[in-house]
């Protein structure tokens, strides 16, 4: 699981540039699934039999938050704006990689303590300093290039990982792991694993892929809030709890109950996240696609969401992969 996740936590694949991850997905499951892409930048891995009526969509968004270059000044400083809901607090003094014609390292401008007692945080005041002359910057960087905050993939105590992009590359890793668990099984249904695009900027890929694929039911895997300082217990699951199962009015009770039932059969521990309305995940789009899709949500508990130092537990991811595998092997929640 660690190897899968590390490969997925590549510096690439900011919202709008998801297909940069296509070689990684091919490398991980190209031998056992048929891999395609579509107009919206979704990467779709199909498995199972097409001779049944049953089609399950398993979604995990693959895009990561980042920055995009909007301006280069005459000294070579690069102005950028967020792509997705980046935590502005994490920017000052962070190193970034600008993914232009050549990868260029820079630092996000900040004022030193000798002159200021802190930075005003605003999405209009993000400047990247590459330290290079303007002519060279303009050769290597173009407007619209994406940039990501650098954060090495680091192992913490207790089988936990700290990295950027764990939202939602950890969900993608669960899909990959699940696909590998299924490789020698005869599936009772058709399964589309969708590594969907542009969740962070408005759930575009989930909407278009659900429309095109016309599934009967869907399970969405995203990250959920892990318990930490300042997070109320009812909004979170403990890191290492096994995983989070969501309950919400917009989700299918059948799918949710099935997930709960299967978790019990696996003697798997989990926490609930109960929402009074929409879930804030791709499920909100998928469930209302075409004539409606029965949808459930499971999540990998994640600390420090939308920073460069998100934390997840590999144990949770392993358990969720097993849960998904069983869900697929049972042919989903609603056997006609």
């Amino acid at each position, binding site marked *: 699981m660690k190897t899968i996740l590390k490969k997925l936590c590549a510096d690439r694949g900011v919202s709008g540039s998801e297909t940069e991850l296509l070689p990684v997905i091919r490398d991980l499951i190209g031998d056992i699934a048929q891999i395609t892409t579509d107009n919206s930048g979704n990467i779709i891995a199909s498995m199972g039999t097409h001779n049944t009526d049953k089609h399950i969509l398993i979604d995990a968004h693959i895009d990561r938050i980042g920055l995009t270059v909007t301006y280069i*000044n005459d000294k070579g*400083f690069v*102005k950028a704006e967020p792509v997705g*809901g980046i*935590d*502005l*607090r*994490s920017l*000052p*003094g*962070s*190193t970034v990689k600008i993914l232009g014609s050549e990868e260029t*390292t*820079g*630092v996000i*401008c*900040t*004022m*030193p*303590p*000798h*002159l*200021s*007692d*802190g*930075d*005003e*945080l*605003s999405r209009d*005041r993000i*400047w990247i*300093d*590459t*330290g*290079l002359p303007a002519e060279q910057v303009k050769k290597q960087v173009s407007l619209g290039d994406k940039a990501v905050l*650098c*954060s*090495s993939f*680091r*192992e*913490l*105590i*207790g089988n936990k990982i*700290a990295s950027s992009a764990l939202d939602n590359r950890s969900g993608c890793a669960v899909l990959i792991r699940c696909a590998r668990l299924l490789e020698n099984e005869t599936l009772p249904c058709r399964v589309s694993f969708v590594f969907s695009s542009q969740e962070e900027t408005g759930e575009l890929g989930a909407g278009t892929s659900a429309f095109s694929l016309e599934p009967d039911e869907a399970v969405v895997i995203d990250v959920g*809030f892990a318990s*930490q*300082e*300042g*997070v*109320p217990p009812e*909004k979170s699951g403990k*890191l*290492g709890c096994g995983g989070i199962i969501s309950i919400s009015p917009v989700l299918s009770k059948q799918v949710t109950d099935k997930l709960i039932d299967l978790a019990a059969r696996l003697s798997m521990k989990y926490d609930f996240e109960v929402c009074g309305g929409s879930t804030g995940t791709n499920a909100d789009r998928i469930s209302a696609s075409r004539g409606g899709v029965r949808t459930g949500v499971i999540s990998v508990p994640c*600390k*420090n*969401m939308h*920073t*460069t*130092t998100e*934390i997840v537990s590999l144990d949770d991811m392993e358990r969720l992969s097993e849960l998904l595998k069983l869900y697929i092997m049972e042919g989903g929640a609603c056997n006609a």
Partner: protein
Amino acid sequence: MLDYDLLKRLCTCCGISGDEGQVRSLIINEIRPFADELSVDNLGNILVLKKGRKRPGKKLLISAHMDEVGFIVTHITGDGLLKFDCVGGINDSAAFSKNVFVGKDKVPGVVCAKPLHLLKADEKKKNPPIKDLLIDIGAESLDEAAMYVSCGDSIVFDTMYENKDGRVISKAIDDRFGCLVLIELIKSELEYDTWFSFVVQEEVGLRGAKCAAFTVAPDCALVIEATTAADVPYSEEENCVCHVGGGAVVTFMDRSTIYDREYYLTAWEMARELGIKVQTKTRIAGGNDAGAIHSSRGGVRTLALSVPCRYLHAGASLASTEDMEAVYALAKAVAGKIQTL
């Protein structure tokens, strides 16, 4: 050219104030064959005499500090998270969401606070104060954390090091760059006998330099530093202090010292003669070991030469190798000159 591989090794050493041992060992290994006298004093300063071709009229001390800013573990919570305090001046904005190493075993951790999605609107606009931040090493209880870390453990930024296309991005350029210049001078042929001090605890009050200057008892001193460049796009020209790429910084005054006027003018003159790019600071800002050295014993005539460096005291600072070369060239020239003044 300066030995940038050595700069990398210096910058990636862990050595907050009071815990400079790793830096000290590296430096001693580098300079031992070239030093005529070498000792480590009670505070941990390295004091070195390097003989030149001639005996000088004036005793010169060239000094740089070994310590870097960082944090220290002050408390472990019941949930296994670490409370910490700053060692040296670090802005609230520099700490949040950074990768760090804790303790001598370099346990990886991350600095965290309440997540974004749950903040009130006004909380999103400013960085949380450092007192509200926690370090997460993955431990789930006090007992588990205590197996890996203890109160009083040092914490340093875990930052990439990159030297490419004439600029260095790294932690601790302040003042491992100064250490590099001193090492290079010690390895080079000198005109006059010269004393060197690699000092501790600059960032917590110029403490090592005070004792080193007392022991060496120089007539004159040269401090090699990294100084703050605030030449970022939203900084007005008069507030930039100095510019990366603008050459070596020769300071007339900062918050700790009014520098010797004759030395200051000599540095400018030498730079003009040798065609070395120089600039001065356009704001009375910052301070360095000169503050302790120039007031030592009966007084020491002192000059500081610095490399302009952006994002000083943050995880990733940035400086130009061209400026670094300028500081080294000017230091070498000025050192010989002021011993004759």
